[in-house]
């Protein structure tokens, strides 16, 4: 059995009314505009949104979203890294490989080990990417 947290979380979907937008990707975490306003105004961040973000989901919204919706989505996207920090130990403990999870979430479908290992390389000032812990694990598995 693949643990449930391995499954990709495709998006944090901002909708005018939570849960009723038919364009929302399957499996996305939904947050209403009002709730998003509440969060960026200093309110508590829902745990499922934090988990989705840490596991690599991006904030998305309908292509025909109003300027107000676009603005709140942009603010939420900007603030989420800091807002999620307190949640990282808990979510990270469950997940173990957060960067790989983020790379998974960023790819459509199930990426290959090679694709994942490229995505989790460390950047270095000299321009030559370095093997991160997770990249080593993934590259090792290609040798099975």
């Amino acid at each position: 059995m693949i643990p449930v947290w391995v499954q990709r979380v495709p998006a944090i979907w901002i909708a005018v009314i939570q849960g009723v937008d038919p364009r929302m990707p399957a499996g996305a975490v939904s947050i209403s505009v009002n709730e998003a306003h509440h969060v960026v105004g200093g309110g508590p961040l829902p745990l499922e949104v934090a988990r989705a973000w840490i596991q690599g989901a991006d904030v998305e919204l309908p292509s025909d979203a109003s300027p107000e919706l676009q603005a709140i989505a942009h603010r939420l996207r900007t603030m989420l890294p800091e807002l999620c920090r307190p949640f990282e130990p808990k979510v990270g403990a469950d997940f173990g490989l957060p960067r790989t999870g983020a790379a998974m979430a960023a790819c459509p479908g199930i990426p290959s080990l090679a694709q994942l290992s490229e995505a989790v390389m460390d950047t270095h000032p000299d321009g030559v990417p370095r093997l991160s812990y997770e990249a080593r694990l993934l590259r090792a598995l290609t040798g099975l």
Partner: protein
Amino acid sequence: MEGRRRKRVAVLSLGTETDVWNAARITAAWGARRDVESVEVIGWDLTHDACSLLPGASVVHDLPLAGLRTRAGRHPLAAAIALRGAIDGIIEGRWFDTVLNLTYGGLAGHLAPLFALDPHAVVGPFVDETGQWRASHPAFEYLATWGLDPALNVFSLQDVWSAGAHVRTDEGGHFTADPVADTLVEHGCGDGAPPIIVAPTTDAEHWLGFGWEGLVSTLGHAGGRPVMLVAPHGEDALVERIADRTGADVARWPLRHRAALIRRCGAVLTSDFSTSVFAARAGVKQLLLRREGTIPLASLPGPHILSMSGEARPLHLDAVLTFAMWHLLQRQTPEPTLQNSGSGLAIHEIGYDNSGCLAATPVASRQPPTHAETLRAWRRIWRDAWVNLPPRPADVEQVLRHGSSNRLNRARVDRGRVGEALRAAARASEAAA
């Protein structure tokens, strides 16, 4: 070692059982070092029993090969998380001071630094943080450049790995004696003469000039000792067939007890390389039947072995019996047989040469005598190069003038820094002349 923390050492052996047994010398030597607290073998779960036999090793950790493959087939992340969990379980919060990687391949090369306190302190080949292969010792550079080329390589792979792991190449590396297994074997074998172990392979039936049944029956009769069959991997059906037709016993011992059995019997006849390596670690005499007329030096199983093969013709039962009696049972053999190089036999004694490396010395062969001396000279040249010594003039002269094959010698000279040293020595010699 007062005042200094003793080292926790990991030995990464992620290969076959044969690869695991090839690590025996290294675990034995490192396990005996006073500054080493523990030698912990990390192998596949499938080779756990083989790893458990390694001398000097105090702990065996398993990585789940089948489980990882299954998970990787379902989802890459599932495999990665399982692997990470296994690694964390092995490290248990204390990274290894030294990691000896005894496996050539991307998997072990990437994993080895993950176990190490200092990722650059891996002994053996490994992949550095930029993704480049690194060799911790010139022996591993040699392995990468020459070791896999059977024509150019002049060492057994065991020797190259040992040298790279800072272990004497003539280290015995015998399996640790297990009193329980020894007692079981004593009772199992009874009071009579210990059997001769025969480990046959199906493949050999195609190139031997006789059937295994004939050999087993005749050997038992002529040797005055019973024959006991041991099945190499995948050869159970063959062994059952031979046992049915000859009445020979079959050893169905677990691997740990099988080492004790072979040690007690002291004589093995086989055509299986893996069994040969195993028996070499048990420290017994062997007659190894091989298909090819020449021996690839890379695959020398160990010392005290007589290797026998036909040169472009099948081996004959009489010849195999003669040499089995001579080598395994110490019976006298007529001199002409041993010296009969025209008989189509290639017979080599495998043992340590005077530089402590495994070598195959022709007993009867068509190979010219200079061939063996040239190989010895090459070995000395490479081993000197590994410790930054210049080649000895006598060795340079031997390999440049008396090489058995100029083409091979040219290929050896033309590559790498040893080649440069050799050319410099040759130039100096010419200038002096």
